[in-house]
């Protein structure tokens, strides 16, 4: 007998794909936000900081609802995307990625920002005197030195993205094989009279994925810190 039923396997793979794309897609923006918030002060910084952190304190259902009304086929952005590019987000795996990207974004920014702030600004000043412009400094000094924080931030955010429920079900519904990620599959199983065993197995999988991700994040960050001479 297989360890997982086809339906369970589908949910696991879909979750990994949804969360993976969400992190890959939002990482550059998260790095940018972390860099700007960690290094510069500008008018309206508090507002930007608040907006970045908003998904952390908003009920996920509200995030999903906001996405539904803006990104739905009749929403301002969603309608435009559909008419211009033929892209439909609602009820699709891509939509699920967007939903989990939004809810895990603050986690990623926080972790990366902490590592940006821990980098001695004097190193960038030294790089300037050696002839490095802003983009040059970002790639040769900041990015390598923030790599450990970036990596652990991305992995933690990935684990959180795997587990996102409210925003996903609100925005893209619960369609097996398309938008039914692990937590949604668990929820569906608990609604079935004989779904207890399925729910338990899926819960164990969720638990394992989350634990492995957290441990991997810790391990890799330590290795990276040593690699860049700071651990």
């Amino acid at each position: 007998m297989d360890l997982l039923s086809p339906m369970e396997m589908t949910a696991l793979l879909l979750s990994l794909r949804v969360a993976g794309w969400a992190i890959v897609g939002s990482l550059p923006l998260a790095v940018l936000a972390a860099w700007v918030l960690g290094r510069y002060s500008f008018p309206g910084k508090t507002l930007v900081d608040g907006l970045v952190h908003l998904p952390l304190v908003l009920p996920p259902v509200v995030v999903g609802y906001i996405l539904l009304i803006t990104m739905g086929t009749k929403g301002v952005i969603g309608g435009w995307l559909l008419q211009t590019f033929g892209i439909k987000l609602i009820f699709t795996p891509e939509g699920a990625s967007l939903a989990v990207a939004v809810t895990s974004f603050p986690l990623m920014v926080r972790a990366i920002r902490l590592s940006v702030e821990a980098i001695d600004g004097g190193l960038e000043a030294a790089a300037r005197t050696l002839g490095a412009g802003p983009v040059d400094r970002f790639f040769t000094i900041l990015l390598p030195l923030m790599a450990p924080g970036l990596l652990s931030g991305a992995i933690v955010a990935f684990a959180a993205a795997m587990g996102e429920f409210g925003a996903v079900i609100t925005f893209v519904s619960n369609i097996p094989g398309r938008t039914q990620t692990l937590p949604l599959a668990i929820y569906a199983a608990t609604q079935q009279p004989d779904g207890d065993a399925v729910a338990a197995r899926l819960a164990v999988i969720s638990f394992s994925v989350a634990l492995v991700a957290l441990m991997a994040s810790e391990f890799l960050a330590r290795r990276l810190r040593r690699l860049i001479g700071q651990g």
Partner: protein
Amino acid sequence: MLDVSIRRKLGGFALDIAFQAEERGVTALFGRSGSGKTSVINAIAGLSRPDEGHIRVGDAVFFDSARRIDVAVEKRRVGYVFQESRLFPHMTVRSNLEYGLRRVAAAERRIALGPVVELLGLGGLLDRRPRGLSGGETQRVALGRALLAQPRLLLMDEPMAALDAARKAEILPYIERLRDEMNIPIVLVSHAVDEVVRLATTMVLIADGRVVAAGPVGAVMGRLDLSALSGIQDAGAVLDLTVERHIDADGLSALAFDGGRLTVPRVARPVGGAVRLHIHARDVIVALSPPSGISVRNALPGRVVAVAESGPSSADVQIAVGGSFLIARITRAAVRDLDLAPGREVVALVKGVAFEPDLIAPGPRRVVDV
């Protein structure tokens, strides 16, 4: 030539600095901490922006408020050696050294990696990470990194302040070689008299954001108001001499300068080589005529330039010896009895000489009675 004239307000502190320095040699910005020294070199590097003024190095204008010129730090090509070195921790020593070098067009590279590695003794360190280096090694790498950026000007902010005496002795000779072998003007920020005396050609005294004295090290160190201006307690003149001959039988060397000749314990410099002596005021005795029957061998005829009180019972006498100055710290009673006043012809007897026996090899300062 380096030409700096800047004004900047920082809260209640006003910086108003103007000085010029030669194309070659070391200009020391000397003063207490908080006097504004580091602000000056940060402005030269472009890391801070003056409210007004100008900064020029040779033909290059870095900053000129009247002409609205403010060249970006990364385009100024100044080598900056920071007090805390600021090596990039994620790179090897070699990558650190090459960081600035790679950012200069190949046609403009005059200083190559090989000679710098040799000059600073970095051969064995190239594949190591900054983390594993000693304080002295770290600063040598920082020096090399700054040099390889092909700088128009080298700035050093207390490069030895974080080092203990032994590490300092290790790095000083390298800075001297840099000064003597590279044709790059150096601006050194320091609050240590011994560093300045040993390295500097020009000295700029800064107090409360202003230049209070500037000129050749000998002229500035020979000022009677030096301790009032700078807080330097071990006042004493600095003389630049050349080795005239070695007297091997007695283990002595005769050194000459425009004010006469000094005989000191043999120095490890060739005949014709330059030697700098720091002669403390308390080691100079004033006589009205050349004495006989005493052990002090060095008697230099001169003329009193100025007399100033330096303590409840003591006075400092500035004596012109040729084109140089000596300072003698004697009692006020002696000043009265000998009737010492400006213009009086005297003989300065030099009892002790503090000198660097060998400008290349590291070693502690030696004070020798002569």
